């Protein structure tokens, strides 16, 4: 049933760098109401999979179906992929999220600017809107990146370690926003600590070269406890992988 309305479909994707295989025939469906956590050991291929879904990397084989245009995809990268001394103000950075694939000479509209102000307000960034990004704290920068991803009102949101360098206060703002967003759009989050998202996560995909998918119903607090040990488990034993305990069907 979930398959029928999946928004993203990853089919048998294999990818690697140089000779080394990072992802081995990985398949994944992301449905319209999903809150999917992607977990796994470092170097297991979490970010790589995300970049393939986003079209930033081309898989060796397999297919990715993502029926959305650029502006409909919200993306919050793990590391700011930019130079923090770049001469742009917070307002301008966030507004980049509304760029999309516009034609030549099309400037930002008043509506674009309004949306930017709204989202800045929501993330408590209005006071630094005219500051340059090099003057932001870690939490402010993270909120700026999330604001940039949300300002286009995306139809799906991907976040790579969104709570990595975030102070407790920003963390609450971010979590609250994700919970609210998930009522209308799917959220995909890469994290090394799914306990942070406890109660919100509906599906878990565990990646270590191969992908192990755990559909929603099983993710109870007790299971989350166990999943927290996932990277260790995987590194220690590899397959068969028993992070979520025995499946009871």
């Amino acid at each position, binding site marked *: 049933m979930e398959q029928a309305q999946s928004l993203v479909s990853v089919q048998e994707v294999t990818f690697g760098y140089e000779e080394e295989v990072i992802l081995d025939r990985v398949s994944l469906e992301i449905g319209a109401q999903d809150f999917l956590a992607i977990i796994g050991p470092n170097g297991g291929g979490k970010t790589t999979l995300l970049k393939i879904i986003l*079209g930033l990397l081309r898989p060796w084989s397999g297919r990715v179906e993502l029926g959305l245009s*650029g502006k409909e*995809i919200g993306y919050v990268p793990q590391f700011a992929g930019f130079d923090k001394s770049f*001469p742009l*103000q917070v307002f*301008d950075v966030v507004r*980049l999220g509304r760029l999309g694939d516009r034609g030549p000479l099309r400037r*930002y509209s008043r509506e674009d600017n309004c949306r930017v102000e709204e989202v800045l307000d929501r993330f408590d960034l209005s006071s630094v809107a005219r500051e340059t990004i090099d003057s932001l704290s870690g939490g402010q920068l993270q909120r700026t990146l999330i604001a940039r991803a949300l300002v286009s009102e995306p139809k799906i949101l991907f976040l790579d370690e969104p709570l990595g360098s975030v102070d407790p206060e920003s963390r609450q703002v971010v979590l609250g926003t994700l919970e609210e967003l998930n009522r209308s759009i799917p959220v995909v989050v890469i994290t090394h600590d799914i306990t942070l998202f406890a109660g919100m996560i509906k599906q878990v995909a565990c990646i270590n070269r191969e992908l192990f998918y755990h559909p929603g119903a099983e993710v109870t607090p007790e299971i989350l406890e166990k999943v927290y040990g996932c990277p260790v488990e995987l590194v220690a034993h590899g397959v068969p992988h028993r992070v979520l305990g025995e499946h009871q069907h």
Partner: protein
Amino acid sequence: MESLTTLLSFEFVRNAIYAGLLASVLCGVIGTFVVVKRLVFVSGGISHAAFGGLGVCYFLGVEPLAGAATTAVLAALWLGSVGHGRERSRDASIGVLWAVGMAVGAIFIFKTPGYAPNLMTYLFGNILTVERGDVLLTLAFTALVIGLLVLFFEELVAVAFDEEFAKVQGVPVRAFTTLLMVLVALSVVLLIQLVGIILVIALLTIPPVIGLMLTRSFIKVIFLSVVIGAVMTLGGLALSYGFDLPSGPTIVLLGTVLLLMVSLLRRVRREKRLRSPRNAT
């Protein structure tokens, strides 16, 4: 005043002034992208590679500028395609290109029969030898650059700032980075006439670096760079005339003095702000 009018009555002086002003615009626009996108070393590689094409064309009796432009564009396209995300191979490629370009150029110019062109002019430039045709060519190219900037300003900024995010948004990142590299290559070739292969980097970097010290808005950095570039080229021209100095190095050194002054001023201002009783939170 009298002498200034006399001076301006010479066509080569007028051409030099036009060339200097146009160069300022090119440097301001292209240089700002070069600096923020960290293409300084790439630009150096391109300009030295261009010397190879220039030498070959000299030897063959073809327009050297055409050879320089072709080589520069090819070099830019090659560097643009080398190892995305592989900094080391890209870094090394630039170094190889840099040296090979100079070696090829030097050998072909050395082997050119008859009148041996003055190597120094190519290496260090001479704004006073700029001809009317050069000025018109630079004018056309500057107009093209400004046109593209106006058309694609937001895309260019987005790509310069964060290629990955721009790509997710659906911006044709590859096309824009290639465009940027080609524009850098052609700018470098046109600027070679003014300040030469070795000093062209200064004209592309010093104005934006000063601009970045003074403002933190992208568009203002571009405008400031144009103004600073004009001060450099015209001021350098005047000083080189007044003190009988070679124009290229004078332009560069004037820029350096400006750079030092601005950074010193900034430091003084910052210290003053730190000492004044807490106005910062």
